[in-house]
Structures are given as C-alpha cells and as structure tokens.
C-alpha cells in the first residue's frame, strides 16, 4: 500500500515541470507499426513511459450471427492493463475503469472507422497497456488507430490525442504521472485532426469555463504535433522523437 505522500511541487521557479518540460511540451514519442505477425494490423505507441501495444483482427464475419448488425460493422474493443504495468500489481480481472475506458475508446473508434462499409462483419481491437505513466487511454486509442491503418481498414482520419491538466494552477500539455495524481484537472481529448472533429473528450478535476477554452487551444496544438509524427510513422513504419 502506498504510504501517504507529500504533495510535491509541480512547477518550479523556472516554470518547468517535474520532468523538466515546459508547460506546452510533449513527452518523447515512439511509434512502430506491423509488430505482430498474426494480427491483420498492429502497432506499439509510446509517450514518455506510457507504452501500449494494439492489435486488430478483421473485418471478418461475425459469430454469433445474431449479434451482427445489418448495416454496419460491430466493433469489439478491449482496453486492458497488464498486472506489471503499474507500480503496484494490478489485478488482471477487468476493473470498472477498464470497462469504462473500453467503452469510451470504442465510441471514439466508431466515429473514425467507416463501419458502413462492412455490414454483418466484425473488427476486433485489442489494446494492452505494458507500461502505465499517465495518458494510457489516449496512447491506447492512438495505438489502435495506427494498428487499424496498418491493417488497411478504411477510416475517416488517423486519431491523435493528448491530456491537458492543471499543475499548480498552470495549464500543462501531456500530463505525466505526478501531474495526473496531484494536479487540479485531467482533460483527455482526441481528434481526427484533418476534419477538426473531436472523438474522445472527458474532464475530471475542476476548471473554470475560461480555463476550459484555453485548455482546448493548448490541446489543439499538441494534437497537431502528434498527428505529423503519426503520418510520418505510417510512411516509414517507424518513428521516434525524443
């Protein structure tokens, strides 16, 4: 059990964060496509110390047939954390959090995948968090998006997302674990950048309506940066930025 911790200072005198970043700086990103042989598409996506592997199977015929939908594809999406991904061992049984995040991620993918193209079929998307250091739902969603592109499944756009938070009252981009735990807000947001459309959006913590608008602007910038890296990774199968 974690002992009661002293709340650390999140922003120092120079305005830098606990990991030395400026408030509007992203963590290092690493993307690799086609990492699994059996899956129709796969990818590993890393942001800082958060690392997720995603695999896609399909589109394929849906079994059992009665669960198929006549006019679109059924997406089966599973977000799961490995027991060794966190500081304390995480029980492998699906937690309520994993169930909520599986739903939130599936809904984000529903906006992007052209599901009308494959009626009566199913696409399976599996994401495993290998290392958790804040931002796991977004890194998982992006890993899934890359895996879907690797599988050649038609989509409206790639998905890029980032979490904006409040550290000691300052809006910060791409939360790390300390900021997630001790900060005043955590706002994950993901978009289809070319279409300017939001596919995932949540907030926990508190923000004034004005802070919300500033946070959205900050997120938009971060997302644009990540999107460029994603496009590069697709062309080259692999991209790493520190």
């Amino acid at each position, binding site marked *: 059990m974690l002992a009661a911790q002293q709340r650390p200072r999140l922003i120092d005198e120079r305005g830098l964060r606990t990991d030395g970043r400026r408030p509007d700086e992203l963590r290092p990103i690493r993307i690799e496509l086609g990492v699994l042989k059996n899956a129709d598409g796969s990818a590993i996506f890393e942001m800082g110390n958060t690392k997720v592997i995603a695999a896609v199977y399909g589109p394929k015929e849906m079994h059992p047939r009665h*669960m198929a*939908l006549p006019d679109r594809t*059924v997406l089966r999406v599973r977000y799961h954390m490995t027991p060794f991904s966190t500081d304390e061992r995480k029980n492998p049984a699906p937690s309520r959090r994993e169930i909520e995040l599986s*739903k939130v991620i599936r809904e984000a993918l529903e906006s992007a995948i052209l599901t009308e193209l494959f009626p009566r079929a199913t696409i399976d998307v599996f994401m495993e968090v290998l290392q958790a250091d804040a931002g796991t739902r977004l890194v998982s969603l992006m890993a899934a998006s890359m895996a879907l592109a690797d599988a050649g499944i038609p989509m409206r756009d790639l998905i890029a997302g980032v979490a904006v938070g409040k550290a000691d009252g300052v809006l910060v981009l791409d939360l790390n674990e300390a900021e997630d735990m001790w900060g005043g807000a955590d*706002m994950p947001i993901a978009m289809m950048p070319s279409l300017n459309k939001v596919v995932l959006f949540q*907030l926990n*913590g*508190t923000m004034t309506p004005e802070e919300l608008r500033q946070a*959205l602007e900050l997120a938009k910038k971060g997302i644009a940066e990540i999107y460029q890296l994603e496009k590069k990774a697709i062309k080259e199968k692999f991209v790493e930025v520190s």
Partner: protein
Amino acid sequence: MSVTSDRLQTIVSNVKKASILKALERGVRLDNRKPDEYRPLSITLGYAKKADGSALVKLGDTMVLAGTKLEMDEPFPDTPNQGNLMVNVELLPLAYETFEPGPPDENAIELARVVDRSLRDSKAVDLSKLVIIPGKKVWSLWVDVYVLDFAGNVMDASTIAAVAAIYNTKLPKVEVNGEEVKVLTERTDVTPLAYPVVTLTAAKIGNFVVIDPNLEEESIADAKLSISYTPDMRIVGIQKSLGGAMKLEEIPQIEEVTRKAASRLFSELKNTFGIA
C-alpha cells in the same frame, strides 16, 4: 470487452426522425420544449424509509431512485482523515424492455463513474466530515442509484438523485470512548453534502443541440456531451459519449448552453426543493 450493440433496439422511424429535425429547424422539439429546456423535475426526499437518505427523482418520464447507506469502516491507509464514498448505478431490467438482469454493464459503470467523479472532484461530498476517530474510524457512504424507468438522459437524473439522497442523509450521533465507538439511534443534523452538483447533458442531432434529450432524441443523436457544475459555476466533470464526433469549436458553444441551464437547475433545486 466493449461491443457495438443495438441494445436499445429503438428504431425511430425515418418519418419521426425527419419531423424531429424539421421541428428543430423551427426552434422547437416534439414535446414542445425549447432546445435549452430540461423536462419537468420532481424530487421526493426520504422515499425509501430504511435508507439513511433517499430520493425518488422524475425527469420527464425517466425515473431514478437513489438510496444511501452509512457503514462504519477503517479509512484507507493513504487517506486517514477522510471517509469513503462509493457510487453504484444499476440499469434495472424493470426500466426498459430489452434490459437483462446481471452485473452492471459498461453503460451502468460509465454512469456510476461519471456521477462519482462529479461528487468527488467537486468536493460536494466533504469526506472529512465523515471522520469519527481520525486514522481509525470513518463513515463509508454508499450511494446506490437505481434506474427504474429508462426514458432518456438517465445521466442527469442519476446525478440529481444521488445529490438529493446525500442531502437527505443525516449522520448518526456517536459516543466515542477512547477507541470504542457507540452508534446511537438519534441523528445529528449534519449532512455529508457540502453543496449540490448538477450534470447537464447536451445531445447533438445533426447541426442542432438539445439539452436533456428524451429517449427518441437520444436514439437519433450523433453524440452527447455531459458537463457537471458546482453552484459557483466551476466545471467539475465532462464526458462525451456515443459514437459520433463533434467539431472542436462546437464544444465552447455547447458549454455556454449547459452552463445557463445549470444555473436554472440550481435555482430550482434551491427554491423548490430546498437543496442548496
């Protein structure tokens, strides 16, 4: 695993869909509400007599019953000066034709977690008020929200029900003798609720936005955005749901509408039901 499903199996006819959109073009909805109006609200406090606190809420046809139970517990080691809050939501098979019995599904879990976050992150439930002996004995506040009639926007109704039930809860009197705690039958007049919290859900239907969607509007909506507020208009929770996308610019626009509706809802809670 989360699976695309047509669990509601409400097929809104194309004719109905067209008339909903036509009405919205004229600025009304099929039940004669304006786009920013929520449905008639009724709250009956103390409805479940054996609960420590309870509230039966009707928002239009949607009906939700929330009850609280207090249990004496040890605090978690990393929060010795705080009580515990647990929120559970169940979508009962009673509530809709195609709901099956079983453990909470992803929809019930999402509802529970969003309501929990609204109460917790806003500090509307003051966990420090739940301490009996610091570090040794605290109250655990169990909030169970049961959806009895699923007729659209159970999210907002569930939040109101949880808040009202907690407001209706009065902590029991206790006698503390060193490490021993004796719980008396009398109640204090202390409630764990510091102030109310509300959630306003907006549904995007084509290019239109409506507050507090009813079942039909929810069935044809592209996306929903639920925003939670405290009485001093801090945003204490946001959850986008359904598998459609919304433009980035639409978010601040929707937030303006939900904020104004929240303000009206707080007034109604205070003036009509005394919840403040």
